[in-house]
Protein backbone atom coordinates (compact mmCIF):
# COMPACT_ATOMS: atom_id res chain seq x y z
CA UNK A 1 0.00 0.00 0.00
CA UNK A 2 2.72 2.45 1.06
CA UNK A 3 4.85 1.55 -1.97
CA UNK A 4 1.85 2.11 -4.21
CA UNK A 5 1.23 5.50 -2.63
CA UNK A 6 4.85 6.56 -3.09
CA UNK A 7 4.74 5.41 -6.71
CA UNK A 8 1.58 7.48 -7.25
CA UNK A 9 3.32 10.53 -5.81
CA UNK A 10 6.43 9.91 -7.92
CA UNK A 11 4.18 9.73 -11.00
CA UNK A 12 2.88 13.23 -10.24
CA UNK A 13 6.42 14.58 -9.78
CA UNK A 14 7.49 12.89 -13.00
CA UNK A 15 4.50 14.26 -14.92
CA UNK A 16 5.20 17.75 -13.65
CA UNK A 17 8.90 17.67 -14.58
CA UNK A 18 8.75 15.63 -17.76
CA UNK A 19 5.62 17.05 -19.37
CA UNK A 20 4.17 20.14 -17.70
CA UNK A 21 7.33 22.22 -17.26
CA UNK A 22 8.62 21.55 -20.81
CA UNK A 23 5.14 22.31 -22.15
CA UNK A 24 5.05 25.60 -20.21
CA UNK A 25 8.48 26.39 -21.64
CA UNK A 26 7.33 25.55 -25.20
CA UNK A 27 4.32 27.84 -24.85
CA UNK A 28 6.51 30.56 -23.42
CA UNK A 29 8.88 30.29 -26.41
CA UNK A 30 5.89 30.38 -28.71
CA UNK A 31 4.66 33.58 -27.04
CA UNK A 32 8.11 35.11 -27.51
CA UNK A 33 8.05 34.08 -31.18
CA UNK A 34 4.68 35.83 -31.59
CA UNK A 35 6.16 38.90 -29.95
CA UNK A 36 8.81 38.90 -32.70
CA UNK A 37 6.10 38.98 -35.39
CA UNK A 38 5.45 42.71 -34.95
CA UNK A 39 5.33 44.85 -38.08
CA UNK A 40 6.04 48.43 -39.12
CA UNK A 41 3.87 50.64 -41.43
CA UNK A 42 6.14 49.93 -44.43
CA UNK A 43 5.19 46.26 -44.23
CA UNK A 44 1.67 47.09 -45.34
CA UNK A 45 2.38 50.05 -47.61
CA UNK A 46 2.03 53.74 -46.85
CA UNK A 47 -0.35 54.71 -49.64
CA UNK A 48 -3.74 56.35 -49.22
CA UNK A 49 -5.67 53.06 -49.18
CA UNK A 50 -6.65 50.94 -46.17
CA UNK A 51 -3.06 49.85 -45.47
CA UNK A 52 -2.68 51.57 -42.09
CA UNK A 53 -5.93 49.99 -40.85
CA UNK A 54 -4.70 46.63 -42.01
CA UNK A 55 -1.58 46.99 -39.86
CA UNK A 56 -3.69 47.99 -36.84
CA UNK A 57 -6.00 44.98 -37.27
CA UNK A 58 -3.03 42.63 -37.57
CA UNK A 59 -1.36 44.10 -34.50
CA UNK A 60 -4.58 43.69 -32.46
CA UNK A 61 -4.71 39.98 -33.34
CA UNK A 62 -1.01 39.48 -32.73
CA UNK A 63 -1.22 41.14 -29.29
CA UNK A 64 -4.31 39.12 -28.30
CA UNK A 65 -2.52 35.97 -29.36
CA UNK A 66 0.69 36.83 -27.52
CA UNK A 67 -1.19 37.68 -24.30
CA UNK A 68 -3.21 34.47 -24.49
CA UNK A 69 -0.04 32.40 -24.92
CA UNK A 70 1.72 34.11 -21.99
CA UNK A 71 -1.36 33.43 -19.83
CA UNK A 72 -1.23 29.73 -20.68
CA UNK A 73 2.54 29.56 -20.14
CA UNK A 74 2.41 31.22 -16.71
CA UNK A 75 -0.57 29.18 -15.54
CA UNK A 76 0.96 25.92 -16.74
CA UNK A 77 4.16 26.74 -14.91
CA UNK A 78 2.23 27.50 -11.69
CA UNK A 79 0.26 24.28 -12.04
CA UNK A 80 3.46 22.28 -12.60
CA UNK A 81 4.95 23.76 -9.40
CA UNK A 82 1.78 23.12 -7.39
CA UNK A 83 1.41 19.54 -8.62
CA UNK A 84 5.00 18.77 -7.75
CA UNK A 85 4.60 20.44 -4.33
CA UNK A 86 1.49 18.41 -3.54
CA UNK A 87 3.30 15.16 -4.35
CA UNK A 88 6.42 16.13 -2.38
CA UNK A 89 4.31 17.15 0.60
CA UNK A 90 2.47 13.83 0.48
CA UNK A 91 5.80 11.99 0.40
CA UNK A 92 7.02 14.00 3.34
CA UNK A 93 3.89 13.23 5.31
CA UNK A 94 4.26 9.58 4.41
CA UNK A 95 7.83 9.57 5.72
CA UNK A 96 6.66 11.19 8.95
CA UNK A 97 4.11 8.45 9.65
CA UNK A 98 6.42 5.58 8.59
Amino acid at each position, binding site marked *: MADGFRADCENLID*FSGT*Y*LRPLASDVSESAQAVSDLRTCPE*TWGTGPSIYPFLGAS*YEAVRQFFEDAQWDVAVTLSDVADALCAVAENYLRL*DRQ*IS
Partner: protein
Amino acid sequence: MGFLEDCGLIVNLGRAAGWGDTVVEMTTRMKDAQAGNTRELRRLSDGWATVGEAVDRGLDLAADALPGTMANWEGGAADGFTAYMAQVRGVLKLHGERAGEIKLCLDTIRCAIERARRDVEKLANSTADALRDITAAADPGGMRALVNGVFERLDGIEKIRGENERAARAELERLAAALGDADVNDISGPPEPTITTAPSFSSAEFRSRHQPPELNKTKVSTSPPEHGRSLR
Protein backbone atom coordinates in the same frame (compact mmCIF):
# COMPACT_ATOMS: atom_id res chain seq x y z
CA MET B 1 13.58 48.74 -68.22
CA GLY B 2 12.72 48.60 -64.52
CA PHE B 3 9.73 50.17 -62.81
CA LEU B 4 11.58 53.20 -61.45
CA GLU B 5 13.25 53.89 -64.79
CA ASP B 6 9.83 53.68 -66.44
CA CYS B 7 8.45 56.16 -63.91
CA GLY B 8 11.36 58.54 -64.52
CA LEU B 9 10.79 58.36 -68.27
CA ILE B 10 7.04 58.91 -67.86
CA VAL B 11 7.65 62.02 -65.74
CA ASN B 12 10.26 63.44 -68.12
CA LEU B 13 8.21 62.82 -71.28
CA GLY B 14 5.00 64.01 -69.62
CA ARG B 15 6.62 67.24 -68.44
CA ALA B 16 8.05 67.86 -71.90
CA ALA B 17 4.56 67.44 -73.34
CA GLY B 18 3.10 69.90 -70.80
CA TRP B 19 1.42 67.27 -68.61
CA GLY B 20 3.82 67.53 -65.67
CA ASP B 21 1.35 67.51 -62.75
CA THR B 22 -0.72 64.73 -64.29
CA VAL B 23 2.18 62.36 -64.85
CA VAL B 24 3.57 63.02 -61.38
CA GLU B 25 0.17 62.08 -59.92
CA MET B 26 0.14 59.05 -62.19
CA THR B 27 3.52 57.73 -61.06
CA THR B 28 2.74 58.49 -57.41
CA ARG B 29 -0.38 56.35 -57.65
CA MET B 30 1.60 53.62 -59.40
CA LYS B 31 4.12 53.56 -56.54
CA ASP B 32 1.39 53.59 -53.85
CA ALA B 33 -0.59 50.82 -55.57
CA GLN B 34 2.36 48.43 -55.28
CA ALA B 35 3.59 49.52 -51.84
CA GLY B 36 4.23 46.97 -49.10
CA ASN B 37 7.02 44.63 -48.08
CA THR B 38 6.24 41.20 -49.54
CA ARG B 39 9.47 39.68 -48.20
CA GLU B 40 8.53 40.73 -44.67
CA LEU B 41 4.98 39.43 -45.15
CA ARG B 42 6.41 36.06 -46.21
CA ARG B 43 8.64 35.99 -43.10
CA LEU B 44 5.60 36.72 -40.92
CA SER B 45 3.56 34.04 -42.65
CA ASP B 46 6.33 31.47 -42.09
CA GLY B 47 6.54 32.56 -38.45
CA TRP B 48 2.82 31.98 -37.82
CA ALA B 49 3.08 28.55 -39.46
CA THR B 50 5.65 27.44 -36.88
CA VAL B 51 3.75 29.01 -33.95
CA GLY B 52 0.99 26.46 -34.38
CA GLU B 53 3.38 23.54 -34.54
CA ALA B 54 5.67 24.60 -31.69
CA VAL B 55 3.61 23.19 -28.83
CA ASP B 56 1.85 20.30 -30.58
CA ARG B 57 4.32 17.56 -29.70
CA GLY B 58 4.61 18.46 -26.00
CA LEU B 59 0.87 18.80 -25.79
CA ASP B 60 0.25 15.37 -27.26
CA LEU B 61 2.91 13.76 -25.04
CA ALA B 62 1.33 15.29 -21.93
CA ALA B 63 -2.16 14.22 -23.01
CA ASP B 64 -0.94 10.64 -23.58
CA ALA B 65 0.80 10.48 -20.20
CA LEU B 66 -2.02 12.08 -18.19
CA PRO B 67 -4.43 9.11 -17.84
CA GLY B 68 -1.66 6.84 -16.49
CA THR B 69 -0.44 9.52 -14.09
CA MET B 70 -3.89 10.26 -12.70
CA ALA B 71 -5.21 6.67 -12.77
CA ASN B 72 -4.86 6.25 -8.99
CA TRP B 73 -5.76 9.81 -7.98
CA GLU B 74 -9.27 10.88 -7.16
CA GLY B 75 -11.23 13.70 -5.50
CA GLY B 76 -12.47 17.09 -6.66
CA ALA B 77 -9.04 18.70 -7.04
CA ALA B 78 -7.68 15.68 -8.91
CA ASP B 79 -10.66 15.73 -11.27
CA GLY B 80 -10.26 19.50 -11.61
CA PHE B 81 -6.63 19.05 -12.60
CA THR B 82 -7.54 16.46 -15.25
CA ALA B 83 -10.27 18.75 -16.58
CA TYR B 84 -7.83 21.67 -16.65
CA MET B 85 -5.35 19.67 -18.72
CA ALA B 86 -8.10 18.86 -21.23
CA GLN B 87 -9.02 22.54 -21.33
CA VAL B 88 -5.41 23.63 -21.89
CA ARG B 89 -5.12 21.12 -24.70
CA GLY B 90 -8.28 22.44 -26.32
CA VAL B 91 -7.14 26.04 -25.98
CA LEU B 92 -3.67 25.40 -27.37
CA LYS B 93 -5.09 23.41 -30.28
CA LEU B 94 -7.39 26.35 -30.98
CA HIS B 95 -4.40 28.69 -30.82
CA GLY B 96 -2.75 26.50 -33.45
CA GLU B 97 -5.80 26.82 -35.70
CA ARG B 98 -5.94 30.58 -35.20
CA ALA B 99 -2.24 30.90 -36.05
CA GLY B 100 -2.93 29.04 -39.30
CA GLU B 101 -5.78 31.43 -40.10
CA ILE B 102 -3.58 34.48 -39.41
CA LYS B 103 -1.01 32.98 -41.79
CA LEU B 104 -3.68 32.69 -44.49
CA CYS B 105 -4.64 36.36 -44.04
CA LEU B 106 -1.01 37.39 -44.47
CA ASP B 107 -0.72 35.22 -47.57
CA THR B 108 -3.83 36.89 -49.03
CA ILE B 109 -2.36 40.35 -48.42
CA ARG B 110 1.02 39.39 -49.86
CA CYS B 111 -0.58 37.90 -52.98
CA ALA B 112 -2.68 41.06 -53.43
CA ILE B 113 0.47 43.19 -53.31
CA GLU B 114 2.37 40.87 -55.65
CA ARG B 115 -0.48 40.96 -58.16
CA ALA B 116 -0.75 44.76 -57.94
CA ARG B 117 3.02 45.00 -58.38
CA ARG B 118 2.99 42.87 -61.53
CA ASP B 119 0.06 44.81 -62.99
CA VAL B 120 1.54 48.21 -62.14
CA GLU B 121 4.93 47.30 -63.59
CA LYS B 122 3.30 46.19 -66.83
CA LEU B 123 1.25 49.38 -66.88
CA ALA B 124 4.30 51.59 -66.26
CA ASN B 125 6.19 49.83 -69.02
CA SER B 126 3.43 50.14 -71.59
CA THR B 127 2.76 53.76 -70.54
CA ALA B 128 6.42 54.71 -71.05
CA ASP B 129 6.41 53.10 -74.50
CA ALA B 130 3.15 54.82 -75.50
CA LEU B 131 4.37 58.18 -74.20
CA ARG B 132 7.51 57.87 -76.28
CA ASP B 133 5.40 57.28 -79.41
CA ILE B 134 2.96 60.10 -78.61
CA THR B 135 5.77 62.57 -77.94
CA ALA B 136 7.50 61.61 -81.17
CA ALA B 137 4.26 62.11 -83.09
CA ALA B 138 3.42 65.34 -81.15
CA ASP B 139 -0.14 64.08 -80.66
CA PRO B 140 -2.00 65.94 -77.82
CA GLY B 141 -5.20 63.95 -78.39
CA GLY B 142 -3.28 60.73 -77.99
CA MET B 143 -1.83 62.04 -74.73
CA ARG B 144 -5.29 62.72 -73.29
CA ALA B 145 -6.51 59.26 -74.24
CA LEU B 146 -3.40 57.65 -72.77
CA VAL B 147 -3.73 59.51 -69.46
CA ASN B 148 -7.40 58.59 -69.14
CA GLY B 149 -6.64 54.97 -69.95
CA VAL B 150 -3.82 54.78 -67.39
CA PHE B 151 -5.96 56.25 -64.59
CA GLU B 152 -8.74 53.82 -65.45
CA ARG B 153 -6.36 50.88 -65.20
CA LEU B 154 -4.93 52.21 -61.94
CA ASP B 155 -8.48 52.41 -60.57
CA GLY B 156 -8.91 48.73 -61.45
CA ILE B 157 -5.60 47.69 -59.86
CA GLU B 158 -6.35 49.62 -56.66
CA LYS B 159 -9.85 48.18 -56.53
CA ILE B 160 -8.67 44.57 -56.72
CA ARG B 161 -5.95 45.12 -54.12
CA GLY B 162 -8.39 47.00 -51.89
CA GLU B 163 -11.01 44.24 -52.08
CA ASN B 164 -8.48 41.56 -51.13
CA GLU B 165 -7.10 43.62 -48.27
CA ARG B 166 -10.54 44.54 -46.95
CA ALA B 167 -11.43 40.83 -46.89
CA ALA B 168 -8.18 40.03 -45.06
CA ARG B 169 -8.83 42.85 -42.60
CA ALA B 170 -12.35 41.60 -41.88
CA GLU B 171 -10.90 38.14 -41.23
CA LEU B 172 -8.25 39.59 -38.89
CA GLU B 173 -10.97 41.42 -36.97
CA ARG B 174 -12.98 38.21 -36.70
CA LEU B 175 -9.88 36.44 -35.36
CA ALA B 176 -9.28 39.20 -32.80
CA ALA B 177 -12.84 38.73 -31.57
CA ALA B 178 -12.43 34.95 -31.49
CA LEU B 179 -9.21 35.22 -29.50
CA GLY B 180 -11.01 37.45 -27.04
CA ASP B 181 -13.72 34.84 -26.48
CA ALA B 182 -13.82 33.27 -23.04
CA ASP B 183 -13.36 29.73 -24.37
CA VAL B 184 -10.02 30.64 -25.90
CA ASN B 185 -8.76 33.03 -23.29
CA ASP B 186 -10.10 31.93 -19.92
CA ILE B 187 -7.53 29.46 -18.70
CA SER B 188 -6.67 30.82 -15.30
CA GLY B 189 -6.11 27.36 -13.86
CA PRO B 190 -7.94 24.33 -12.55
CA PRO B 191 -11.39 24.93 -11.04
CA GLU B 192 -11.99 24.97 -7.28
CA PRO B 193 -10.87 23.14 -5.25
CA THR B 194 -7.70 23.98 -7.07
CA ILE B 195 -4.11 22.94 -6.75
CA THR B 196 -2.93 26.41 -7.75
CA THR B 197 -4.92 29.11 -6.03
CA ALA B 198 -5.55 27.34 -2.73
CA PRO B 199 -2.59 27.41 -0.33
CA SER B 200 -3.66 23.96 0.84
CA PHE B 201 -6.55 21.56 0.61
CA SER B 202 -7.92 18.50 2.33
CA SER B 203 -6.35 15.19 1.38
CA ALA B 204 -9.87 14.02 0.49
CA GLU B 205 -9.84 16.43 -2.47
CA PHE B 206 -6.71 14.98 -4.02
CA ARG B 207 -6.13 11.47 -2.76
CA SER B 208 -4.45 8.33 -3.96
CA ARG B 209 -6.23 5.00 -3.99
CA HIS B 210 -3.15 3.70 -2.17
CA GLN B 211 -3.25 6.46 0.43
CA PRO B 212 -2.34 5.26 3.95
CA PRO B 213 -5.33 5.75 6.30
CA GLU B 214 -3.14 7.90 8.58
CA LEU B 215 -3.11 10.56 5.87
CA ASN B 216 -6.87 10.89 5.76
CA LYS B 217 -8.16 14.27 6.93
CA THR B 218 -4.72 15.88 6.65
CA LYS B 219 -4.16 19.15 4.85
CA VAL B 220 -1.78 19.20 1.91
CA SER B 221 0.08 22.35 0.99
CA THR B 222 0.47 23.46 -2.63
CA SER B 223 3.80 25.08 -1.75
CA PRO B 224 7.06 23.15 -1.83
CA PRO B 225 7.90 21.28 1.42
CA GLU B 226 10.47 23.85 2.60
CA HIS B 227 7.58 26.33 2.81
CA GLY B 228 5.07 23.71 3.87
CA ARG B 229 3.86 25.14 7.15
CA SER B 230 0.45 23.59 6.63
CA LEU B 231 1.84 20.10 6.97
CA ARG B 232 1.07 18.52 10.25
